[in-house]
């Protein structure tokens, strides 16, 4: 299974080293085996959409990539560096990997601008002026420069999520992780966030995105990965996956998603 995935990926891309490598990763929460022998490679510039039923381990998997969770077995390489307990290398990896959460997790006591400049100033040691210019540039890209002086609590959900995307981009990451970025949003705000993500994909950013937005997957994904009960069950280009699913589990999942929509 995983060998097939790797061939597809490397056939589609040049022979640059992969941005992310997961090699037989296992993780348990207590006795609960949440990741079972997960192997996957994501090439530089590749866009991967991860889907699967709730509780299948999608969040856990992408949280292992920037080590918000620690895996217990197997290897994870990000940008060629292996994730270990070493704090220095961890900091280096987190600088290269941006993350967007389902619940935004903006810092409510800081303004939108301060949210965006904090990490560039203190982690990248950027002068304040430059950091602010950079933040304004990204806030313009996500189409909310006029909200820079407001507090997150004064914005709508869609606007907050776009700030969260801008905040992650201000660190100039090589890889972006999205964990159900639109699941907490009202329907009328989903589109503005997806549009922002499509625009980001068009810049060639390496992205791993957990989402059930099939339209988005078809539009930008190079590959869709279907997870169930901690395993990667099936993966391939979006059209193949959605039009001719191979496994019963994916068929069942797709029928549930379609009924839900």
């Amino acid at each position, binding site marked *: 299974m995983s060998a097939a995935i790797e061939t597809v990926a490397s056939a589609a891309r040049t022979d640059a080293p992969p941005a992310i490598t997961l090699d037989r990763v296992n993780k348990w929460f207590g006795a609960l085996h949440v990741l079972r022998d997960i192997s996957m490679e994501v090439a530089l510039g590749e866009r991967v959409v991860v889907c699967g039923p709730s509780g299948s381990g999608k969040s856990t998997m992408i949280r292992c990539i*920037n080590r918000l969770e620690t895996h217990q077995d197997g290897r994870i390489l990000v940008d060629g560096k292996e994730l270990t307990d070493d704090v220095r290398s961890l*900091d280096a990896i*987190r600088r290269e990997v941006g993350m967007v*959460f389902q*619940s935004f*997790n903006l810092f409510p*006591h800081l303004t939108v601008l301060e949210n965006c400049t904090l990490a560039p100033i203190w*982690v990248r040691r950027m002068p304040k002026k430059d950091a602010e210019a950079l933040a304004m540039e990204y806030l313009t890209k996500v189409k909310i420069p006029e909200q820079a002086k407001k507090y997150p609590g004064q914005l709508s959900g869609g606007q907050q999520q776009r700030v969260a995307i801008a905040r992650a981009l201000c660190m100039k990451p090589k890889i972006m992780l999205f964990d159900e970025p639109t699941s907490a949003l*009202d329907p009328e705000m989903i589109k503005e966030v997806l549009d922002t993500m499509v625009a980001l994909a068009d810049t060639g950013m390496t992205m791993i995105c957990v989402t059930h937005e099939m339209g988005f997957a078809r539009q930008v994904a190079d590959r869709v990965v279907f997870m169930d009960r901690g395993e990667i069950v099936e993966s391939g280009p979006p059209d193949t996956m959605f039009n001719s699913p191979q496994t019963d589990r994916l068929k069942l999942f797709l029928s549930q998603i379609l009924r839900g929509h």
Partner: protein
Amino acid sequence: MASDTTTTQLAVATAVPEAAPRTPPISVIGPIAWMRANLFSGWISTAVTLALAYLIARWVIGFVDWAFINAIWSVPNNQTQACRDLRGTGACWAVVTEKHRFILFGTYPYEQHWRPALVCVLFVGLYIVSAMRRFWRKELALVWILALTAIGILMWGGILGMPYVPQERWGGLPITLILSTFGLAFAFPLAILVALGRRSKMPAIKAICVLYVELIRGVPLISLLFMASVMFPLFLPEGMNIDKLLRAQIAIILFAGAYLAEVVRGGLQALDKGQYEAADALGLSYWHKTSFIILPQALRLVIPPLVNTFIGFFKDTSLVLIIGIFDLLTAGKTAIVEPAWQGFGVEVYITIGLIYFCFCFAMSKYSQGLEAELNRHRRR
């Protein structure tokens, strides 16, 4: 969010038939309407209101009579007979007029009283400056160091032509202010470190912090003060003698630190886990994360219990009387030991109570303002 949109839709739906804006009926606003709704809403409520109003009025009139109308404000040369004749009908503020300097400054040499008086003014000035947000800069630490040095020089003297006054002679309000200011100024940072330590992933640090909090919380402050004054010197090498006030001060710092640490820990726990994760995901180091993201939010959440603890400790400093330190309350007690003035405790305690109240009420009011201002970002 969703409820916002539905209310707007509802508002639109009801607004359409009648275009003219409607003012609420007169009877639901204004003080009369408020009284009708809250004080006289039924016959039981009316009866309770009237009965309580009668009791309050009687008590207030009685107090005003006693405290102001029948009161004696001063007597010549300790002739307290006039006061004694009025027992029960009028207050004898003469005791306060006569003894106020002793109550405020204890046994500090009389002709040097300007020094502790200036110390009190300095303390109050320090509080006011520190309370203003526009002075919340690094320089404030310097101001504190300077002010505290000045306070030390004034109290001890021995230079600049001021005669030396040993610490045993200090007393009254300066002692209370010294113990509580230093106590809280040192206990608060200690508490933050202990609270962070209790959540540390390093088992040794965590164990030390848990042990400290549990041990200190498990004993009353009085026994800690006793230990500081009686047992602590036993452990010190011969000839080395730490000042009694300093020992009490250390005991208070340790005690307040343990309580404040638990308050701070409550704030750390109440904070959404997502805040920690977002800071981690951005690559912020532990100290950057803690000082920019975690503490500012956690401390804001616990302003009310923090100030509650502050106020409690301000008053608890009066327990140092147990080891023979003359704080404000002890000085007041001692002031009425003299036979001529025995029996006028009520007047003295009311006065001391008022002084405590001024400080505590100021703290409480200030914290309310600070809370509203710092949590402004929560409002929409």
